């Protein structure tokens, strides 16, 4: 049970504010924002998602730079409220197509309408986009998706010339296409976030894949769909230790440590032929989340060398090799590496003739940054940096720098080998042939090489 719900902009402005029970003072948004902004005097630490000020519990989640907040005086389940906040954000996105400060401001009446149906007197009623449709009467006002270029929500799926309809992800579930007719289509996205830690000798210390099969349906008439996964997929690692990587490597089978499913999935034949059956509701939702610690081939190999190079000087050589096929290209690759505290200057040397790469030395937090717009499979890139220090080295220089961390997005590539074998839409008519999009993407969650 919650007392209030509000959305704040990054600057702390109220975009939406709904008081359900009148138990918490109106100034709560301000109290909340001040607390979050100045959590610790040094500004180093982030405020936790839940905290208590004078008997009022504040919950918040950050979505596209906005703060979705709920308050209550009751000792509720934190997961319940945080899950709800996330779900409200998703429902709003389903309706507005794009979730941003701009779209919220343009559509706040619609948002209030949604909030009144989602929560009544602090109790959750429904968060199903499908159910809500019959209660919602305002039409969304579309914001220009093109203006959101820097975010490029659909771009993560773009792989060279194989284009995916980028607008789909920013389409409202209730709005009609300009032509008047709705386009029948369904998107199934396999999104894998990978975490790998390499030891200083290049050995893999830990690795994990956190995957989601996400679905967004624009099909009319709610047909049932069947989603078939790899037949050799198995779940649970039985007696083996979760961290025993050797045993399953190379056998070809996909072994999930564990997974969970959205309520509406029927698993009748899952054990037999690995198919999921469901009637996809409107809007975006995760069909299945899964977790794997089975060994996989890390998409990038990082090699880092840092050493002294004379009095008050040092040198860094950073080599990265893409271990995936050459028809695949990774996007927005960024490498970061903290340098010794007493580094005053860094001069960079890229390979001759490369384009689309950018280097930077952040003086404030002594960090080296290397951006690569594109990273083609099979290729290796090298960065050399010459460092200048303000004082003599005390101890081993490798103890003063690193680790190297990396973020990237690799469209149409997944490391787990989990696949959607087919996507079947059960509808009698032979002329009915909606667009089906199955998209894969691999992203770095925490990709770290120690030095």
């Amino acid at each position: 049970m919650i007392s209030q719900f509000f959305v704040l902009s990054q600057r702390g402005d109220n975009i939406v504010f709904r008081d359900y029970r009148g138990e918490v003072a109106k100034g709560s948004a301000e109290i909340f924002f001040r607390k979050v902004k100045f959590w610790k005097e040094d500004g180093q630490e982030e405020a936790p998602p839940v905290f208590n000020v004078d008997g009022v519990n504040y919950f918040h989640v950050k979505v596209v730079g906005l703060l979705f907040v709920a308050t209550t005086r009751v000792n509720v389940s934190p997961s319940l409220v945080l899950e709800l906040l996330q779900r409200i954000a998703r429902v709003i996105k389903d309706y507005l197509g794009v979730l941003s400060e701009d779209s919220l401001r343009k559509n706040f009446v619609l948002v209030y309408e949604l909030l009144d149906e989602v929560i009544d007197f602090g109790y959750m009623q429904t968060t199903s986009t499908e159910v809500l449709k019959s209660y919602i009467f305002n039409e969304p006002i579309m914001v220009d998706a093109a203006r959101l270029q820097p975010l490029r929500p659909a771009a993560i799926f773009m792989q060279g010339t194989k284009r995916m309809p980028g607008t789909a992800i920013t389409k409202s579930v209730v709005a009609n296409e300009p032509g008047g007719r709705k386009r029948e289509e369904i998107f199934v996205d396999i999104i894998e976030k990978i975490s790998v830690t390499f030891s200083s000798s290049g050995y893999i210390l830990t690795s994990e894949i956190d995957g989601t099969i996400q679905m967004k349906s624009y099909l009319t008439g709610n047909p049932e769909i069947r989603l078939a996964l790899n037949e050799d997929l198995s779940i649970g690692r039985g007696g083996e230790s979760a961290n025993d990587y050797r045993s399953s490597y190379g056998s070809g089978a996909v072994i999930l440590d564990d997974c969970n499913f959205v309520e509406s999935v029927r698993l009748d034949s899952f054990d037999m032929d690995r198919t999921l059956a469901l009637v996809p509701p409107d809007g975006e939702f995760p069909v299945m989340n899964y977790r794997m610690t089975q060994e996989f081939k890390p998409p990038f190999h990082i090699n880092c060398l840092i050493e002294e190079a004379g009095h008050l000087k040092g040198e860094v050589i950073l080599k990265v090799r893409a271990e995936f096929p050459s028809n695949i290209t990774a996007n927005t690759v960024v490498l970061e590496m903290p340098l010794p505290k007493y580094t005053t200057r860094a001069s960079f040397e890229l390979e001759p003739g490369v384009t689309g790469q950018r280097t930077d030395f952040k003086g404030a937090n002594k960090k080296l940054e290397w951006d690569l717009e594109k990273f083609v499979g099979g290729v290796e890139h090298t960065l050399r940096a010459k460092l200048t220090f303000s004082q003599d080295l005390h101890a081993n220089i490798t103890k003063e720098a690193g680790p190297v961390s990396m973020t990237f997005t690799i469209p149409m590539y997944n490391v787990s080998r989990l696949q959607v074998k087919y996507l079947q839409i059960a509808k009698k008519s032979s002329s009915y042939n909606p667009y089906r999009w199955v998209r894969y993407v691999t992203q770095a969650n925490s990709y770290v090489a120690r030095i």
Partner: protein
Amino acid sequence: MAPPAQSQRSPSPSQPSGKSEVSDLKLQLRQLAGSRAPGVDDSKRELFKKVISYMTIGIDVSSLFGEMVMCSATSDIVLKKMCYLYVGNYAKVNPDLALLTINFLQRDCRDEDPMIRGLALRSLCSLRVANLVEYLVGPLGSGLKDGNSYVRMVAVMGVLKLYHISASTCIDADFPSILKHLMLHDSDTQVVANCLSALQEIWSAEASTSEEASREREALISKPVIYYLLNRIKEFSEWAQCLVLELVTKYVPSDSSEIFDIMNLLEDRLQHANGAVVLATIRVFLQLTLSMTDVHQQVYERIKAPLLTLVSSGSPEQSYAVLSHLHLLVMRAPYVFSSDYKHFYCQYNEPSYVKRLKLEMLTAVANESNTYEIVTELCEYAANVDIPIARESIRAVGKIALQQYDVNAIVDRLLQFLEMEKDYVTAEALVLVKDLLRKYPQWSHDCIAVVGNISSKNVQEPKAKAALIWMLGEYSQDMQDAPYVLESLVENWDEEHSAEVRLHLLTAVMRCFFKRPPETQSALGAALAAGIADFHQDVHDRALFYYRILRYNVSVAERVVNPPKQAVSVFADTQSSEIKDRIFDEFNSLSVLYQKPSYMFTDKEHRVPLEFADELGNLSIGEAANNVVPTQMVEENDKDLLLTTSEKEETKGSRNNGSAYTVPYDGSSTSVFASQAQIESAVSNPTLAGHSPQASFAIDDLLGLGIPATPAVPSPPQLKLNTKAALDPSTFQQKWRQLPVALSQEISVNPQGVAALTAPQALLRHMQSHSIHCIASGGQSPNFKFFFFAQKFEESSNYLVECVINTSSAKAQVKIKADDQNTSQDFSTLFESALSKFGTS
């Protein structure tokens, strides 16, 4: 159509000065109010939007109330909704104007369109104006009977809203019993869920004043209701499922087969993508199996994978909430998670609050087989850019060293920290080395060699400096230049800002003096002089004390300051085990995230309704707070909760002794108790005051319940119990977890006993007179729960009993655990016989 000319000049929302814009709007609304021109609704929509946008950014637009109401005579549902929103926001501050809206809202409540009926009813109930409640009863009554489930759903919440505006109106209209009927019969699950929410809130609030309400509240967790809800659980929305699961947590199944039925039914909820459903299910599993040690352990194994999956899917906020719960479980049963330690490694981009939890988990799960890897990992974090986390990583290494038997490798790591030459690393490591030496004096040789190389000038943090000085004093024998280092520190006395460091310095110089007198004498003189002149009271006092004891007798001084030391075996835990248990009882709530039981951060009236565990933790408080007026007693209770278990045990122990010598009680103590019981019932149940056990006995008799004149009492067996048995709660808990259930049975409680059991305290006294002592009790009529213990006469063999008494069914569920299994049957007979005499003597 006459669109107002001003509408082109739309006021900018970025200028929230307000005044002129609001009067502008007022004018425009007034012009549109009467208009029937085509397209007027669109102009109204625009104006309404502006009004609501002002409302959102905090401009007071309540002065437009009249105009808004006038404009809302429309069939446009979007306009209606906006108007409802506006009215709901301002009705409370404008009760007179709110009256204006009643008319059209009541009319809309009878509209053909169920959407409009529902919306109007919701708005009507959201007005929150006390003097308008009379207008709510009618529409609510028909709303609850509406053929459309949307309207019923809204009406149910409306009843709850009405209850908060005027509880008596709600109760008088008999709405709660209508809700109860709907809850058990409505076909729509959201209506059912709303009824459950509303009833829980209403009955919990009423329970303090009405016995009937507290019975109704208990009825919600009765078998038929629980089973009805559980059997339909998959039809409920995921949020309603959480609500049902929360309720199931409070249900006490009668036997283990029931427990397994419930668990099998809920098994697949652990695979749900919604973390709230999974955590609620886990709480049910944990609660149900509390007294079944083996199954409880299996539950831990079973929930591991789903929890880890939830931690790694979802947003960082959601995973933090789940991780906090995982943290709690890891701290309770580290051995279950010892092979999963890699999941608790920190990722570089995680926020500090997540890293901190993970560090604690890594510390907890460290054992012989994984320590090397864990410590290696922690050492990586010591060089972390995030300094607070780096510090905590070092502390974690130290904690692992303190809890391990084989500390060889760890000591080397710690000593490497000292050589890292980062001041915060050195500082943390020094403190740790000091603690380590207190526990493992045998390592002094290796440590001192390294510590001796640290220049005290490089150590600035008070804690670290104090640790270094402590080691200089303690090991001055082995550190060549200890007296001279101390001397130079004494010379800089005035520059030392921390009183803690100066105190340590005094003691260290004293110790050094006894070990190496000639080299230290001058430093000691200087230190004592500086200490006596110190402005800090403690420093001054300690210096003066040292000075005087030295003058009195040097060898006495040595015995005082430099006694032979015993290695510390276990460092005190910061949180008592009772607090930890209470947090565990409040699984799946904020208590877990804050790592505090709810009474520490929540006002009484906002605690979760039906918190049985909450009452159970309340160890027989009534007796501790004698002769206090009822209002104070409530506060006393809260204070009592803050006491640690040992403190409570002391007060209780002394009481035990007092009464144990006088069996049966003398008259005076009985009368104290009687008045006590009255106060007790007056507090929890004012209507019951004056309701004596005899009276209810008479009523029972009138109803012809057939009370046997002399209950068939089994003859007491040979087992003799120790009248002065003592057992501290933590031992009890430990034993309760370890021992298997020797006997589990259902005992009938005779009607006199039921009548006498108005508060748990009554039974405690009675059982004590039979040498069966209570360690914890709680609950309210009709459900009471007790934990008893007894000891065999002249032997330290214990019997532990869990006894749940339901007064409405007059049954007691008894579980007995015993050190000596052979005699458990005898004890059970004794227990039954003692219980059967309750209320008759």
